[in-house]
């Protein structure tokens, strides 16, 4: 059935696929042809100078005329209709005549100029080109484009053009700086164009259009004619520059059209109203930060009621005490020494502290900060953990790494659906289908059961005793024992919960019986945010792991050998040799992750759609722009996202400057 369907559908869908591939092939073919033609033009520079300048000016003229024709400045060349008629002489050829004629006249003229050695002769040809084109263009101008010539302002604009053009030419030391004439000529042409075409009031008269058209064109012609055949050195430079332009052109075009210019427009739109018409100053930003669901600090006093806050306080104080204790015993005076124990405890303390802070300060903006902190820290930490542990897994190293790495290939949408499945919560009378709630309810049943509970307690105590034994041995050896301590603390916590019959999801009824209780992972604020973050951590841990693993393997083995010879333990080698040398890599991963997390969107969109206090900036942006059609506010949110990654951008630039200078 399925195969039949696919076969039947394939005909239709395959047609669609083939037509896409066809379109792609044609598009690529056209682009490749243009690109190769460009390269062919540049290849003429050194051997056939006239051909080169003929081709390049012919192309320039064709583009300029295409823009003029496309903007309905001039009518079709061979149109019978009155030039008043808007867009007279349409059709494909009506649009192509001007570019073709322009290319022939200017290409031929420029090529002729390229063969002439005498400057006067060249100037004659160049100015002649301008006059000829002007005579062709002027009568074909649409009637409301026929300018009058305001004498005073024309002189002023031409003067400005000359000065700016000459100065601009001088600003490029590589070019023939001694000769300001070409720049001045172009400047004059532009000045004239501004004064006569763009600023003037249009009056239908007979001679004015001729004067108005011929003068700038003749100036451009003179500019082409002014300089003769360049020297071999100039030609080599010209070829190099032309080649660079061709190789960079497509990329720079897409960068500016898809990134730079739109980003600038967005920043501008963020100061306009919802339709992008009236300027509203900072109102969009003020409105956004005034919204309760975006920026809400009113509950900050709840911080002191949160368990996490007090755990953080204990950890931070503990870290300081550990550091001071180690420093004081080692140095004999009251100092703080940063060791694994003290720094690690402090780090975890601060992490817990900010988690507490973000769970109290609510709103989209703080959610984003929370995402940035948690996902970045946890992905790097878990990635490092897996990378280090996998090293010891022997022949299973690659299996373990591949499996942790795999979620990176799954889309954010797919990952969200996968985790929705895990977070599923059903009414308590029914059996749970989500793994997490099933486990949670089973734990609740366990802590209210008879012998299974006793068995669990006994097993836990045995395992803890064994871990405690290892711990004692490692303490004696002076080895690092953080892993054992963490494992013991976690198990001790679980054990106490089990002893007190308070582990897992259940509700105690007044009559002493219990009913199961589920966790609404996605609906219960504020920690539903964390459960959404777990999805991204699940994806990104593999990324951090792979890069860190390679960085660890790249640490010179001499260093590690030397440390071993000096009697360093495995953990000492890790913290004193490996960790410092992979710090730059951790920095790179951190910045990459921050940039990625700042714009997280798909996960929130698919799981909660920003409800239950889980909104993030990118999802809010989408809702505001595409559901409420508010361009101003939407752009303001986008700009806030941009501002959040700006420090990273500056950091990256500085890092690259350093790397390039080194």
């Amino acid at each position, binding site marked *: 059935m399925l195969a039949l369907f696919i076969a039947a559908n394939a005909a239709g869908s395959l047609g669609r696929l083939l037509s896409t591939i066809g379109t792609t092939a044609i598009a690529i073919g056209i682009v490749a042809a243009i690109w190769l033609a460009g390269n062919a033009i540049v290849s003429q520079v050194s051997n056939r100078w006239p051909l080169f300048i003929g081709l390049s000016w012919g192309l320039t003229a064709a583009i300029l005329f295409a823009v003029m024709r496309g903007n309905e400045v001039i009518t079709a060349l061979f149109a019978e209709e009155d030039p008043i008629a808007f867009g007279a002489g349409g059709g494909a050829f009506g649009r192509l005549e001007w570019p073709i004629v322009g290319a022939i006249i200017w290409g031929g003229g420029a090529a002729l100029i390229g063969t002439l050695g005498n400057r006067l002769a060249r100037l004659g040809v160049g100015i002649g080109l301008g006059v000829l084109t002007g005579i062709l263009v002027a009568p074909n101008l649409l009637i409301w484009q026929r300018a009058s010539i305001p004498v005073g302002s024309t002189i002023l604009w031409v003067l400005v053009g000359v000065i700016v053009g000459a100065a601009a030419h001088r600003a490029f030391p590589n070019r023939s700086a001694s000769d300001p004439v070409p720049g001045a000529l172009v400047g004059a042409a532009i000045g004239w164009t501004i004064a006569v075409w763009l600023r003037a009031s249009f009056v239908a008269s007979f001679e004015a259009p001729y004067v108005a058209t011929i003068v700038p064109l003749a100036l451009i012609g003179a500019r082409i004619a002014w300089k003769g055949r360049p020297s071999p050195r100039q030609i080599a430079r010209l070829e190099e520059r032309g080649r660079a332009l061709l190789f960079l052109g497509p990329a720079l075009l897409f960068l500016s059209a898809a*990134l730079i210019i739109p980003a600038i427009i967005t920043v501008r739109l963020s100061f306009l109203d919802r339709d992008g018409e009236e300027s509203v100053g900072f109102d969009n930003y003020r409105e956004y930060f005034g919204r309760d669901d975006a920026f809400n600090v009113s509950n900050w006093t709840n911080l002191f009621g949160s368990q996490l806050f007090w755990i953080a306080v204990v950890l931070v104080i503990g870290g300081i005490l550990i550091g001071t204790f180690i420093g004081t015993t080692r140095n004999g005076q009251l100092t703080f020494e940063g060791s694994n124990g003290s720094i690690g405890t402090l780090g975890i303390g601060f992490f817990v502290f900010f988690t507490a802070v973000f769970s109290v300060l609510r709103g989209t903006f703080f959610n984003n900060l929370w995402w940035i902190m948690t996902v970045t820290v946890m992905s790097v930490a878990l990635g490092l953990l897996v990378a280090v542990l996998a090293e010891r897994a022997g022949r299973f190293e690659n299996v373990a790494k591949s499996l942790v790495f795999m979620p990176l290939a799954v889309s954010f949408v797919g990952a969200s659906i996968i985790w929705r499945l895990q977070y599923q919560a059903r009414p308590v009378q029914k059996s749970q289908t989500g793994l997490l709630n099933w486990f949670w309810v089973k734990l609740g049943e366990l802590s209210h059961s008879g012998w299974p509970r006793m068995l669990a307690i006994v097993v836990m105590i045995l395992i803890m005793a064994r871990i405690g034994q290892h711990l004692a041995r490692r303490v004696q050896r002076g080895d690092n024992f953080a892993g054992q301590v963490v494992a013991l603390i976690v198990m001790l916590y679980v054990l106490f919960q089990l002893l007190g019959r308070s582990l897992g999801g259940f509700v105690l009824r007044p009559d002493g019986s219990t009913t199961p209780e589920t966790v609404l992972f996605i609906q219960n604020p504020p920690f539903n945010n964390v459960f959404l973050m777990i999805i991204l951590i699940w994806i990104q841990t593999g990324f951090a792991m792979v890069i860190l693993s390679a960085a660890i393997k790249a640490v010179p083995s001499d260093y590690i050998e030397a440390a071993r010879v000096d009697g360093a333990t495995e953990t000492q080698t890790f913290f004193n040799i490996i960790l410092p040398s992979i710090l730059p890599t951790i920095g790179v991963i951190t910045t990459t992750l921050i940039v990625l997390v700042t714009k997280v969107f798909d996960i929130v969109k698919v799981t909660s759609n920003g409800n239950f206090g889980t909104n993030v900036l990118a999802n809010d942006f989408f809702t505001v722009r595409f559901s409420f059609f508010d361009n101003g506010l939407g752009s303001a949110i986008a700009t806030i996202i941009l501002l959040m990654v700006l420090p990273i951008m500056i950091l990256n630039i500085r890092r690259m400057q350093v790397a390039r200078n080194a």
Partner: protein
Amino acid sequence: MTAIAPEQGQRNTLGARIYRRLSNLPMWVLWTLVALWTIPTLSLFANSMRDRSSQINSGFWNIVGGDAGFTLDNYDEVLTTGSGAANLFDSLVSSFAIAIPATIIPISFATFAAYAFAWIDFKGREWLFIGTVSLLAIPLQVALIPLLQTYVGGAHLTLPFTDKTLTLIPDLNLNTRGSIAVWLTHTGFAMPFSIFLLHNYISELPREIFESARLDGAGHLEMFRRIVLPLSVPALAAFAIFQFLWTWNDFLIAVTMLSGGDPIDLPTTVRISNLAGDFGANEHLLTAGAFVQAFFPLVVFFSLQRYFVRGLLAGSVKG
């Protein structure tokens, strides 16, 4: 290794070996993590092969025994009959129609640019390169609104000092014309990273090859074709995998740029999120759909993992 080092003189019987394995705390942590990372995907796969009532009433682990409800009808249904006018099969075709051009086009432009930044001498090269790569951090939300406006309404430049408007790009309504707007957008957004990645590789090719080629009279075009293209196949492959995964898995660009178009052009990610949106009704199809969506990236990932990892490393470590 050191966590639980085997004690001296310990007997090397099978029992002792098993005990040593089991008491190795780091390995417990590692394999617990690996299990946590794998089970979610497996659960999706298991549930995708169970019928609607089984999926709703019992957990995925029931696929072995219990309430298995084994069936392949979900795949059948999600591929043949979908919500709206189109089904997931159409979406797969659309996803390919987006991912293939959106991989080929940026890769070629980026290779040109990477070559220029590495081997062509021109003024301002350093700054242009740093500027290009620094755009890596620009979040695409910032460019989305104006881009969409351009695709729909063209680009019109209001000239300074005048009241005139010059049309640079006419109104094309690109958002309703197949996936063209999506490719163009992907191409633009891929540029900084692709140039960065390929430049890292191309600039490390040995200088001597280029010098001797130049002595033989080769121009940039020949050097690009004869030296750079054949030698950078690994980097090109790495980036192609990246870009394919990224465009196949993209949601934001597709959902915005195809907003006005024919639903048949929507890629799999958008289709799946639409399925997820109509709560409950298609819950049983969602698992199969999500698995079909993830199938192609996973195949690419597992068969070409080596290149993928290489690309990741070239893209980050050298930063």
